[in-house]
């Protein structure tokens, strides 16, 4: 039995109320979206806030709506099940739709939100454990201790970004709408991250992700998401890779993006690899050759560490395999790529 620490619960009905409630307390407060990450983490005493601000009553944060300019606004409280089953999203942004579909299991997708998945805490096998377990090891630098158990003598936390949707949103050039005490801001998701596993975001936890904005896709934009995990359900990624390919009227790739996850503290864009795909044409030898080169380069640039479950050498061997399969799936309009 895992009990939550004591806290009070606030149920605001507007973003402004939520921000005010976050700040009107001397101690720590936390926003609660679907609760699928924060609640287990609080049960493990990784967070012990005095106040929880639950976001379920804020209408503005729900809904998936196409804007007049062809862009898409996804309320941060849209569930992963909503995102995965949304027909227009599936057609326009397949990598995001597929990534949402592969997050955990059905119940957690019914509860967990897209905003929550973006703001997911980083994960490490020495961190996501009970207080008792962690205390037996003398804790770690991410919580309650000073040592790193992944890299001996390491000075920086390397807990892994483990959010499946983050690399998909990275490839799509999503913008994040935050609210804070001074108003609203919008930032490209690529600017959100910092290479620090203790807190891998450049915004404070007191800032509220209100919505995710996706730009209008090009005329022939394709994508896919590949996820390595032990089981066909429930598990966090052991490695994940999102792909976006933009094809011109002749079927030649003129732009591409790749982004990996479950490696280090931040999602890992593979820009050099993506550049190799430009100018190639799916179905022709140029593309087949580029896929091999991209897979080989991805294996060089992605170095899984023993920070999350799963043998890191096996995870490394799977980098090129999943990169290749995800690229082919994106080109063929297939996916998601997973082993079950």
């Amino acid at each position, binding site marked *: 039995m895992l*009990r*939550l620490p004591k806290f009070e619960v606030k149920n605001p009905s507007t973003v402004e109320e939520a921000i005010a409630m976050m700040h009107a307390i001397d101690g720590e407060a936390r926003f609660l979206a679907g609760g699928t990450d924060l609640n287990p983490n609080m049960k493990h005493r990784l967070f012990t806030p005095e106040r929880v601000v639950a976001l379920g009553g804020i209408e503005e944060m729900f809904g998936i709506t196409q804007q007049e300019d062809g862009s898409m606004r996804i309320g941060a409280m849209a569930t992963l099940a909503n995102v995965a089953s949304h027909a227009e999203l599936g057609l326009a942004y397949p990598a995001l739709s597929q990534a949402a579909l592969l997050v955990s299991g*059905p119940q957690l997708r019914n509860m967990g939100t897209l905003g929550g998945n973006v703001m997911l805490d980083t994960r490490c096998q020495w961190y996501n454990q009970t207080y008792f377990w962690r205390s037996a090891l003398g804790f770690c630098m991410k919580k309650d201790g000073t040592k790193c158990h992944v890299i001996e003598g390491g000075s920086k936390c390397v807990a892994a970004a483990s959010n499946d949707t983050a690399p998909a949103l990275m490839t799509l050039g999503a913008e994040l709408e935050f609210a804070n005490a001074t108003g609203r801001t919008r930032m490209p998701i690529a600017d959100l991250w910092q290479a620090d596993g203790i807190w891998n975001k450049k915004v404070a936890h007191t800032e509220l992700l209100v919505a995710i904005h996706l730009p209008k896709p090009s005329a022939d934009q394709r994508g896919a998401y590949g996820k390595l995990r032990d089981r066909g359900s429930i598990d966090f990624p052991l490695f994940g890779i999102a792909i976006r390919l933009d094809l011109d009227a002749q079927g030649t790739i003129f732009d591409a993006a790749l982004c990996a996850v479950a490696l280090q503290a931040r999602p890992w864009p593979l820009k050099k690899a993506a550049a190799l795909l430009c100018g190639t044409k799916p179905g022709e030898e140029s593309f087949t050759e580029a896929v091999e080169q991209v897979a080989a380069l991805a294996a060089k640039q992605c170095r899984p560490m023993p920070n999350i479950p799963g043998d890191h050498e096996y995870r490394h061997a799977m980098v090129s395999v999943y990169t290749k399969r995800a690229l082919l799936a994106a080109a063929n309009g297939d996916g998601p790529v997973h082993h079950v």
Partner: protein
Amino acid sequence: MRVFRLQVNGDTVEVAAPEHWTLLEVLRYKIGLTGSKQGCDKGDCGACTVLLDGVPTLACLSLAATVETSAITTIEGLLPAHRANGGEGADPVQDAFDRCGALQCGFCQPGMILSAKALLAKNPNPTSQEIKQSLSGNLCRCTGYTQIYEAVVLAAKGEQV
């Protein structure tokens, strides 16, 4: 303490409990509905699955303070709802699980049945792949999945064996 006004199995229940308690704790230790099981208590096993407005949800990761506007269905609610709708005997999904011997220890069964109920309400004729996907958030420690899937097929057919 906070007084929660919960809609459980068609009844409105007013119950006082600590503000930080989960729905599962309030159901089990305040209302006495122990059909929802406390397994891993951190979202891995699905034993605590209840339906919120018909949607499978983990009660161990839901705060009671966030579900007051939802209609909560626990395993205890199925038979009374079936009878209130003019049915006879057990709820058809519970009956199918019984007839197929879809349990060994039974600990996962309330969650399995509720996930199956939600599937069949949405999709009365699921494929075997859809059944497996819909139940993929419920772990069976006895690994009795085959009969569980057969029970869902039987319930979908609505046949008596």
